[in-house]
């Protein structure tokens, strides 16, 4: 197997853990140092979303709008119209959950350079329960013309993605998660908006490709290792940019493996798997299976038990790979 882009400890029990939102907070601070036009706006969740680092460093460039996500999006649009690069943050359930029309009209339709950080996405929010577990945000954002959609797999990638988003011209959504999750990549792992990276490949020619996004990339890697022991040859693709898709990479993976499993902490309908299948169905149709939440809402619980319960654990991925391989 080849794992050169991975944290050497990624398969160890004591792999380092860090919340993806922490990477955002660090990246946003760096972006603020890099460009004085970068400004931050938050809807009463400055510490939760980790915007606090930027706020402490640049208080004059930080705006607290209160619990008002619709205003959050449109105020940012107005600031961007005058040349600022605003980042807005809240929980993904509220932004883009509550303010979708404002994002559509005042940010995308208006083509303003606003960056939206949606934290606490997915069931892994845990005890807060289903009201706070955004499982629809990728769908909501990727249907919008002009929107770039990024879902980093760990804190390191989140930092890189945030800094890249600040340099990128145009509306951008960055999906973040609350819980500490394993560090998958290293500082040297390449990141570029619109480029997907193969993080893992078996020595033999792969016969199934797993495309994962967000912290579930880790479960995908664990599943790949387990399957390899059972005689499968797997490639794991980290699809951190969901829009625009890395089409060349997707075709190449589909051609090589003829069978694809997508893995995401999101509704199956409309999410990353949908995006991949929309593209491959027309460009290079192959057998596919989808790991994600199947038309249900979340609930309270520990993150790992919720991931298992909603069918996104390692076993579920292994089973999906076996099924899709059998259909080939």
């Amino acid at each position, binding site marked *: 197997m080849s794992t050169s882009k991975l944290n050497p400890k990624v398969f160890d029990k004591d792999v380092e853990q860090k919340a993806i939102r922490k990477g955002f907070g660090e990246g946003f601070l760096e972006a603020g140092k890099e460009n004085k036009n970068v400004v931050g706006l938050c809807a009463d969740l400055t510490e939760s979303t980790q915007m606090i680092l930027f706020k402490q460093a640049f208080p004059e460039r930080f705006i607290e*709008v209160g619990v*008002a996500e*619709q*205003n959050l999006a*449109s105020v940012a649009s*107005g*600031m961007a119209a*005058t040349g600022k690069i605003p980042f807005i943050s809240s929980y993904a359930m509220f932004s883009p959950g509550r303010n979708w*029309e*404002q994002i559509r009209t005042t940010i995308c339709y208006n083509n303003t350079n606003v960056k939206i950080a949606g934290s606490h996405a997915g069931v892994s929010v845990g005890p807060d329960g289903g009201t706070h577990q955004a499982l629809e945000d990728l769908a909501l954002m990727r249907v919008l013309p002009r929107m770039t959609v990024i879902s980093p797999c760990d804190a390191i990638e989140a930092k890189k993605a945030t800094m890249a988003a600040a340099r990128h011209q145009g509306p951008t959504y960055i999906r973040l998660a609350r819980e500490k999750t394993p560090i998958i990549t290293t500082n040297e792992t390449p990141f570029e908006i619109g480029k997907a990276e193969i993080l893992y490949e078996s020595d033999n020619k792969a016969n199934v490709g797993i495309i994962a996004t967000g912290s579930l990339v880790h479960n995908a890697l664990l599943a790949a290792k387990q399957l390899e022991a059972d005689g499968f040859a797997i490639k794991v693709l980290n699809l951190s940019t969901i829009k625009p898709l890395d089409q060349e990479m997707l075709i190449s993976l589909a051609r090589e493996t003829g069978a694809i499993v997508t893995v995401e902490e999101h509704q199956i309908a409309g999410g990353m798997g949908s995006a991949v299948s929309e593209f491959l169905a027309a460009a290079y149709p192959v057998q596919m299976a989808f790991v994600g939440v199947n038309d249900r809402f979340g609930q309270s619980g520990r993150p790992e038990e919720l991931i298992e319960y909603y069918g996104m654990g390692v076993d579920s991925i292994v089973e999906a790979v076996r099924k899709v391989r059998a259909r080939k």
Partner: protein
Amino acid sequence: MIALSDDEIQTLEERANEIRKSIIEMLVEAGSGHTAGPLGMADVFTALYFHVLKQDPKNPAWPDRDRLVLSNGHICPVLYAAMAYAGYFPVSELKTLRKFGSRLQGHPHREFLPMLETSSGPLGSGLSQAVGMALADRIDRGRSSSRYIYCLMSDGELDEGQSWEAAMLAGKEKLRNLIAIIDRNNIQIDGFTEDVMPLDPVRDRWESWNWHVQEISGHNFREIVGAIDEAKGTFEKPSVIIAHTIPGKGVKEFERDFHWHGKPPNKEQAKMALAELRTLGGKIRSEHQ
């Protein structure tokens, strides 16, 4: 600022009348669109584009310009007409309103007409954007900036909670160069505002969010210009001017009737309206009569 002279007022009145005629001509040509609001706000837009705004129509991207955000995008015929007469684009283009490929979209779209400060249509988000512009201006130029951000709003869109989210933030931030002007015409699509969703005491609502509030006649140029001067002289607060207007103003048959909110005149009605505007409601006689 020195008060408007009688001559200046007469010039502005004539300009507003031209704009009203264009509004009727645009709407009848388009075959759809809103009549009451654009006619009602013709005087306010005339005052802004022909007396108040720091602007350069030949260089719309001039960085030092004032910014005008139209929040209730559906009254865009008055915006387009005022901009055309001010020299932003040819008056002849007004007749393309709402047609395929036109820069003058049914609701303003900055992609088609980049000299607009924003796109609008869905109600309640313009004030937020104006607040954002004022905040950005304060970051760049400090609190003594001489640039003003105007937000033109309807009374009906105050039903939207977002309007009040923006009002709260502007009050908190004491955005002194933000001037909101509300078209208080008391109508919206479904009827009179106080029947659909009462807004009064609307003045108290703004005052309670720490805004400086003035109420004026939206058809009196001295009052419009005077209120904007007073707003500019208010240092600790954002300003809102509640402009009491007559929906459909200038065409007696359209005035105060909420049915004219969202429909255009037909050819007969347009002919009648234009004849009335041509004679300034009977005050002047054309040479043909």
